[in-house]
C-alpha cells in the first residue's frame, strides 16, 4: 500500500474523528451549563443526583462508559437497538464531557464576586438578565484556559471510540498497520492529532484574545 493510499484510506477516519469531536462539543458545552446550574439548585435531591452523576462520570474510565452505553441496553434490558454504535459513542462522550464542563462552569460562576450580583439586583436586572448580561460574559473569560485544556483532551479522547470498533483515525491506523506491517499509519495518526490540537490552540488563543479588552 502506497503512502497516498494509506492517507486517503485514513482520511475517511479523520472525518469520523472530526464528527465525534464536533458533536461532542455541540452537545456537552451547553449541557454542561445546564448541569452546572442544576448542581447549584436550591432543591437538595436535584443537587444530590447531579453530584452523583458528576462523580460517576469523572470516577470511571470513559472507555468503560462507552462499553456500557453500547452493550448496556442489550445486556441490562434485553433491548436490541439496531445501528446503535454511533449514537452510543456520542451519548457516552457528551455525558462524560458535560460533567467536566459543568465543574469548570461551576468554578467560574462561583468565582464571580457577590458584589456583581448585588449591583445588578439593585439596578433592577432580573435573575435571567443578571446571569446572561453580567455573570456569563465574565465566567466565559475566566474559564477559557480550562475549557481549552478539556477540548484538547477531547481531540485525543476521540481515539477511545476504537473500543466500539468505530472506524475513526486511530482504529484505522491500528488496522492498516497490522495488515500492512507498517509503522506509517501511526505516524499519520500522530501528525493528524497534533495538527488538530494545534488548530484548537490557535482558535482558543484567538477567543481568549478577543476577551482581553478588560481585566
Amino acid at each position: 500500500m502506497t503512502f497516498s493510499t494509506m492517507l486517503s484510506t485514513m482520511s475517511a477516519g479523520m472525518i469520523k474523528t472530526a464528527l465525534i469531536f464536533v458533536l461532542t462539543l455541540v452537545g456537552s458545552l451547553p449541557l454542561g451549563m445546564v448541569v452546572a446550574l442544576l448542581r447549584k439548585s436550591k432543591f437538595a435531591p436535584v443537587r444530590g443526583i447531579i453530584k452523583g452523576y458528576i462523580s460517576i462520570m469523572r470516577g470511571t474510565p470513559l472507555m468503560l462508559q462507552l462499553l456500557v452505553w453500547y452493550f448496556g441496553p442489550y445486556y441490562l434490558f434485553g433491548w436490541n437497538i439496531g445501528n446503535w454504535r454511533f449514537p452510543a459513542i456520542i451519548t457516552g462522550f457528551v455525558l462524560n464531557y458535560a460533567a467536566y464542563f459543568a465543574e469548570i462552569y461551576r468554578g467560574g460562576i462561583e468565582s464571580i464576586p457577590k458584589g456583581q450580583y448585588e449591583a445588578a439586583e439593585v439596578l433592577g436586572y432580573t435573575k435571567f438578565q443578571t446571569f446572561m448580561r453580567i455573570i456569563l460574559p465574565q465566567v466565559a473569560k475566566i474559564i477559557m484556559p480550562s475549557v481549552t485544556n478539556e477540548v484538547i483532551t477531547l481531540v485525543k479522547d476521540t481515539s477511545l471510540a476504537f473500543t466500539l470498533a468505530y472506524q475513526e483515525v486511530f482504529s484505522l491506523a491500528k488496522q492498516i498497520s497490522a495488515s500492512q506491517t507498517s509503522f506509517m499509519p501511526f505516524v499519520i495518526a500522530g501528525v493528524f492529532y497534533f495538527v488538530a490540537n494545534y488548530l484548537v490552540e490557535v482558535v482558543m488563543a484567538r477567543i481568549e484574545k478577543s476577551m482581553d479588552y478588560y481585566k
Partner: protein
Amino acid sequence: MILEMKNIRKHFDGLEVLEDISFSVDSGEVVSIIGPSGSGKSTLLRCATFLETIDGGEIIYMGETAAHTGADGVAVYASPQELKHFRSYCGLVFQQFNLFPHYSILKNLIDAPMHVQGVSREEAEETAMGLLKKMGIEDKANAYPYQLSGGQQQRVAIARAMAMKPEILFFDEPTSALDPELTGEVLKVIRQLAEEKMTMVVVTHEMPFAKAVSNRVIFMDGGVIVEQGDPRDVFDDPKEERTKQFLRVFER
C-alpha cells in the same frame, strides 16, 4: 416623605443586628449614619435597598408600603412585580464600587436604563454623558473600569446609580476602600449632589464630611439608634455617653 422605616428588626443566626430601628428621610434631605463596625449600619442600608429582607417592621417608599409586619409578626413583602417598582426608587453605591468590569464606563451607565427601564439608547447615552461630565470623567466614557483609579471608579458607580434616576441614593461607606487622596474627589461629588438637593443616606466614617454635608446624623450602635439629630448637636454636644465615647476616637 421619601422613605420611612419603622420598627425594623433583623437577625442573622440568632444575632439581633437591627433592633426596632425607626427613621425617615424627607425629600432633599441628606442623612448620615455613623457608628462603629458591626453596629448594623450597612445591614440597614441593605434592608432599605431590598438586598436583605427584614424580619419585622415597615418599609414605606413615597407613601407606598413595600413591607409590613403581618398578623403573625413576620414581615410581609409586596409582590415581586411591585418590588421591582420599589427598587426603581432607590440607588445604592457600594464600598467596593462593583462596576461591571466587562462593560465600558458608558455601557456601565446605559445598560440598566436601556434593559431594565426600556429607555432608548440615545436618551440613555445623553443622560450618561451628562452624568460623567458632572463627575468630571467624561473623557473616560470608552475606558474600562480596570483602567480607572479607585476614586474615578467610585464616581462612575455614583453616576451609574444616578442614571436610573432614583428618588433616593444610598451610600455604603463610599470612601472606605479609597486612600485619603482619592476620598476627597468622591466626597466632593456627593457634596455637589447634596447642593442639588438629591435625597441621600450616607453610611460613613468621614466625620467632618458628615458634619458639613448632612441635615441629620444618626448614630447607631449594637443594632439600635443611640442618638440622632442636627449634625452640630450630635457632633458638638452629644447627649448620650456612648456617642461621646465613639466621637472621642475621632478627635485627636
